[in-house]
């Protein structure tokens, strides 16, 4: 397995695979953050999370088309505008969905699974009717393409760095929001004891609505970032939903640190195995390992200590 490579090559392999793993880690984390907020804090199993991501991707695509045809001078920075719009669009849709559907289901968590699954089918068909069944390509600004050579084998991809930076910023923002802001305190209070939180004057309905909206908004940003590496089509959201739930459940819902740790473990394991074995086998082994660990620790890697 290692015999075919020289020591120098092995070093480069581990550096490159480590870096590939870091990109995968950022991707997983970006996908899972929104879901972790919604699932962890609100107990809603949002099967339509992938479709909220794809909405972000479509918004990015529309921005790309718009800027390339009407404002070519601003193309280098359009991606930032697209991400903000993606956040707003998915967030707004999230708020609307919460108001129309989710708030009626809080006492029935398994029904949220069915309802959001239906929602995901409706959204897929909606995208197909509006944008067509074919995949669309997002044109990236020139500076985002290419890579920085470190040695003659090791190269650092610019869009990989971009995704990492973006993930770091959003993770920090979420952490600050949850653990340092007044709103975060209200969210955590509602999670721990809804009745008591209401009794002390927290508008729990409003907290729920905005928590769901922000979770969906982050999905929109993730979708926007994915246009750099993946495809944008009506059903593309389905590709990500399994991995996303895997990360959230493995990390232990409701725990930000757990989500980070689990995204890191899964991505590095998969990335290193993918090199020495094959893509399909790596995926199978990762899944088996996750299943094994969840059998030992059903609550996931990190457990929130709550008195029940």
């Amino acid at each position, binding site marked *: 397995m290692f015999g075919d*490579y020289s020591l120098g*090559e092995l070093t*480069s*392999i581990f550096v*490159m*695979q480590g*870096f*590939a793993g870091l*990109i*995968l880690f950022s*991707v997983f984390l970006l996908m899972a953050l929104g879901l972790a907020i919604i699932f962890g804090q609100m107990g809603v199993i949002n099967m339509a999370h992938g479709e909220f991501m794809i909405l972000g991707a479509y918004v990015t695509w529309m921005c790309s088309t718009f800027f390339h045809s009407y404002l070519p001078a601003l193309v280098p920075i359009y991606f930032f505008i697209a991400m903000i719009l993606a956040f707003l669009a998915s967030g707004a849709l999230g708020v609307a969905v919460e108001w129309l559907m989710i708030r009626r289901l809080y006492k029935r968590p398994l029904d949220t699974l069915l309802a959001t699954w239906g929602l995901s089918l409706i959204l897929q*068909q909606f995208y*197909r009717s509006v944008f067509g*069944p*074919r*995949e*669309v*390509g*997002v*044109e990236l600004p020139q500076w985002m*393409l*290419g*890579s920085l*050579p470190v040695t003659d*084998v090791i*190269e650092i*991809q*610019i*869009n*990989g760095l971009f995704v990492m930076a973006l993930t770091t910023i959003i993770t920090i923002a979420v952490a600050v929001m949850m653990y340092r802001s007044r709103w975060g305190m209200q969210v955590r209070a509602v999670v721990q004891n809804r009745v008591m939180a209401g009794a002390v004057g927290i508008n729990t309905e409003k907290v729920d609505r905005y928590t769901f909206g922000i979770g969906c908004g982050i999905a929109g940003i993730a979708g926007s970032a*994915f246009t*750099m*590496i*993946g*495809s*944008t*089509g009506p*059903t*593309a959201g*389905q*590709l990500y939903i399994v991995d996303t739930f895997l990360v959230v459940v493995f990390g232990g819902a409701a725990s930000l640190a757990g989500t980070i740790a689990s995204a890191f473990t899964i991505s590095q394991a*998969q*990335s290193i195995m*993918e*090199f020495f074995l*094959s*893509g*399909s086998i790596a*995926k199978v082994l990762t899944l088996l390992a996750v299943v094994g660990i969840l059998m030992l620790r059903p609550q996931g890697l990190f457990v929130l200590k709550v008195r029940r």
Partner: protein
Amino acid sequence: MAYDKDRPQSDLRRRMLLGMAAMPFAGLALPRTALAQAPATSAVNTTGLAVTDTEVTVGILHSVTGTMAISETGSVQAEKLAIEQINAEGGVLGRKIKFIQEDGGSDWPTFAEKAKKLLVNDKCAAVMGCWTSASRKAVLPVFEQYNGMLYYPTFYEGLEQSKNVIYTGQEATQQILAGLDWVSKEKGAKTFYLLGSDYIWPRTSNKIARKHIENVLKTKVVGEEYFPLGHTQFNSVINKIKLTKPDVIYAIIVGGSNVAFYKQLKAAGIDLNKQTLVTISVTEDEIDGIGGENIAGAYACMKYFQSLDNPNNKQFVSAFKKMWGEKTVIGDVTQAAYLGPWLWKLTVEKAGSFDVDKIAEASAGVEFKQAPEGYVKIHPNHHLWSKTRVGRARPDGQYDVIYETAELMEPDPFPKGYQ
């Protein structure tokens, strides 16, 4: 459906009604005189198919919903275009083609069910349809049991032959061998890296490619790798490619994964103008999603490209765009789907009958000289003789055709020494 309006039947009915008022019995003679050149239905249809004096029914069976809708939309469009053109020329044996379209919904049991409906309830004289090998395998027993005729448009892995199927796309050896010969001669390629999605078609195709690379070209495969359908992380394999530095990357990745693969390849600094990459799974349709600038410089090996320069193809492309819009693109499978109705028409006329047994029998040797790909002929094994071409992707999403085999390649669905 424009051609439904001027269906001769309704026209006839109107004239019959008018005539009957004045001459009660003259109307009876009218259908015969109006269709003087068309043979009597009893003579051309002895097996109870849906054929009348003026009309013949065929089926269109593709996914217009679900994950395969992306790919199969083009096939449906091409088949409808062919049917409309055939009707404009007077139909088949004097009968206009009417079609019944069913949706397979990207679900193989549904395909089988709908195939049965088209054959048993609707008595379709022929069915154009299917895309994935899985859907074809699901409908095959139905077509054999109820003796239907299927025109299947996709390039596929081979290892199949049926009296009831005409394969209008290429089988694996036709698509692969000439392309590998070309790249080894033209680029002096010595080492190959094989990549693919993890299911039967890429695996069988790569198996044939590997045999050819090792046994015929006497060169080397330095890596072979498969990814689950829908995989979007290719950094690891790209790193391996960088380390092994193959002369040729041979890629058979399908669907949305392609977008991720080519974007990441470009982001990793692999320039396809310097690194030779050959694909047999990216048509003009897929480039729409990948983005031309990400794949420009790659070589594709298949039988048809939209940019093919011949009068037949120019007519086909302009008719297709007129019917389905300026922005549509036409890929290899779309053209193969277009061949289905035409080959069926030519075969029916050769056999002088709509009966499936006679058509299956008469198919061998049927030529279609107006085919957009140039010229095709049906082999006794029910596959087509075809040329294999190599195209080079341009940034605008089209291919420049840079090579084609001098002769038509004989289809060989059960290649000896390649299995």
